């Protein structure tokens, strides 16, 4: 301690200020590295040298950011209208304000092309300079008598066209996979059955917030790269969770100046539409600590592998993985190699960090001092719920079972004596082998079949005890079946749930 104190005294730790860095930008004398270059420099020359030589480190990310949208002002029509509901290219937009301000939410799907086209695409097309069709209805007032409106316009016809995203740029995100027997379509993309693939989001060590994890330089008013233009941080984003390294930001930027290369409408099949947003942040290297933090490596950033096959708030975690492993393309789940793909574009993240670097070097971008930092002590609470939700384990009951070697006659008798419609076929260890219904038995008798093995349905749709009843009935409806065996993660039969159980519960 004493040595350290002495050294500090003799050689006072130099600090940079944002004003000094901006002066260097003006004189074109600023040293800017992308975060990948910074990592190399720290690796080769150490933190001290890196701090001495580097003024700014640029970061980048380009990913699906669903909590995004744009606020537009149409100007007044004549006679004027106080819009009640409105659509742009058949995508319903929301009307949160006075008369002609609309918010285009990225995730709202087109009413005519659901899952294909949505708010994110409308924003992209407007940025591209394309014409869009606006329809609106209103109830009519003395001051705003008009009740219907239809017009076409481009971004040049709008008074304001601002991206206003309330949650962007997650510091890191979970890696998603799927334990179910069927492919599922999620906001983490298409997940194949039985852990056959995995996906992840975020740019890891390139991520802006990861390079300044205590938000020393990021806060209200921080100027950033946003969608190819200059934008600003408005503060922390919704669900900001700094304690768990899941920080987020709220941002604003002028869409009229944006570049469609860095802002794209996108659609996740059977989930919905979204907006891919490009964000880059300059991290001023104000002190040696920031030089060290911006050298963070992908292998130091860990995240959970999460089973999205369980549609619950707390999804099972299957292990931890680093962004280095994720970017390599293969991870290990349950001792098996699983291929993993990003949902964010790492190529674009790099281009963003490079672009921001060149803006600064060419005096096109100056740093701003945040007026207030992002909070570092807030938490992300779950929803308070006042209604009880039923789960499969609330209604499941013991399944009537048989083995593959049983005779059809025995199974038929069991159906009668236990008055059920479904018999679950299991092996010696109680693992699911198939299912037989009273209909299958009837059919077998009619066709003169003797062996149970000939009529077993082997591709069985199943459920787990912690699945919500809503999700379970959704499965039954989707597959047009009336019962689901309940199994554990080793496929051992725990019970059964039938559509009758659900009807009884609803009728209660």
């Amino acid at each position, binding site marked *: 301690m004493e040595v350290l104190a002495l050294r500090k005294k003799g050689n006072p730790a130099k600090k940079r200020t944002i004003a000094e860095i901006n002066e260097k930008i003006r004189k074109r004398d600023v040293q800017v590295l992308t975060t990948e270059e910074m990592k190399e420099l720290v690796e080769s020359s150490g933190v001290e040298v890196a701090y001495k030589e580097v003024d700014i480190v640029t970061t980048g990310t*380009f*990913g*699906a950011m669903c909590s995004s949208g744009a606020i537009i002002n149409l100007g007044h029509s004549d006679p004027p209208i106080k819009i009640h509901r409105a659509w742009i290219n058949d995508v319903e937009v929301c009307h949160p304000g006075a008369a002609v301000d609309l918010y285009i939410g990225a995730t709202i799907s087109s009413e005519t092309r659901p899952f*294909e086209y949505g708010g994110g695409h409308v924003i992209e097309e407007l940025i591209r300079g394309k014409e869009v069709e606006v329809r609106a209805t209103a109830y009519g007032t003395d001051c705003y008598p008009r009740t219907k409106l239809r017009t076409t316009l481009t971004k040049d016809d709008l008074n304001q066209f601002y991206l206003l995203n309330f949650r962007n740029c997650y510091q890191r995100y979970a890696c998603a996979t799927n334990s179910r027997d069927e492919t599922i379509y999620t906001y983490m*993309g*298409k997940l*194949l059955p039985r852990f056959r*693939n*995995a*996906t992840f989001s975020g740019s890891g060590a390139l991520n802006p917030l990861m390079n300044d994890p205590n938000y020393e330089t990021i806060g209200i008013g921080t100027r950033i790269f946003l969608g190819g233009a200059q934008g600003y941080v408005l503060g922390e984003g919704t669900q900001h969770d700094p304690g768990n390294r899941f920080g987020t930001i709220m941002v604003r930027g002028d869409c009229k100046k944006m570049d469609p290369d860095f802002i*794209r409408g*996108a*659609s*996740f*099949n059977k989930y919905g539409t*979204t907006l*891919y947003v490009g964000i880059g942040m300059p991290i001023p290297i104000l002190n040696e600590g920031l030089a060290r933090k911006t050298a963070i490596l992908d292998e130091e950033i860990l995240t959970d592998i999460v089973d999205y096959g369980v549609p619950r708030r707390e999804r099972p975690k299957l292990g931890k993985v680093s962004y280095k492993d994720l970017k390599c*393309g293969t991870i290990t789940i349950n001792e098996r190699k*699983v*291929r*993993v*793909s*990003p*949902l*964010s*574009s*790492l*190529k*674009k993240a*790099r281009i963003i960090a490079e672009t921001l670097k060149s803006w600064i070097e060419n005096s096109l971008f100056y740093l701003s001092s945040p007026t207030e930092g992002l909070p570092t002590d807030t938490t992300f609470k779950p929803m308070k719920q006042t209604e009880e939700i039923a789960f499969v384990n609330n209604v499941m009951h013991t399944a009537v079972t048989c083995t593959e070697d049983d005779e059809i006659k025995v199974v038929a008798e069991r159906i009668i004596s236990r008055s059920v419609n479904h018999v679950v076929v299991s092996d010696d260890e109680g693992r699911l082998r198939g299912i037989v219904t009273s209909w299958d038995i009837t059919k077998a008798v009619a066709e003169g079949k003797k062996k149970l093995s000939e009529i077993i349905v082997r591709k069985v749709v199943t459920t787990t005890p912690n699945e919500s009843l809503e999700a379970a009935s959704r499965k039954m409806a989707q597959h047009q079946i009336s019962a689901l065996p309940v199994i554990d993660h080793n496929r051992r039969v725990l019970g059964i749930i039938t559509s009758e159980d659900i009807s009884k519960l609803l009728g209660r």
Partner: protein
Amino acid sequence: MKTMVRILLRFSEKLVEKPITAQVILEHGVPISIVAAHIDSQGGEILAEVPSTHVEKVAEAFREKGVIVTFPRLIEVDSERCFDCGACLSLCPVNAISFKEDFSVVFDQEKCIGSPCGTCVDACPARAIRLVEQHGSV
């Protein structure tokens, strides 16, 4: 490992009855593996793989027997729309999609099996992937 090349064989109604593929295999002693096939009395198509070293000889042999031989593009990627996220990578059963050094997404047309699969198509957030319709669709 030998590299295999895909060829699309198109048979007219007249040729359907003849064991042409078997004949080519026997006459030239070349292994031909059938990836996908659709044949009925009206004619048909076979998507086959042949060793790259013999592809010209095999194509010529089929052509001599009246078969239309093409080297199909099974998948089309709109490079304007694709923003190189890579969501498709882990879905491809034949590893036809990969990253270049700079994280650009590249499709290997020779590995792709096209319409019998199509797993990546509906998973593309940019809707940039399209299966190329083969005549009479394999």
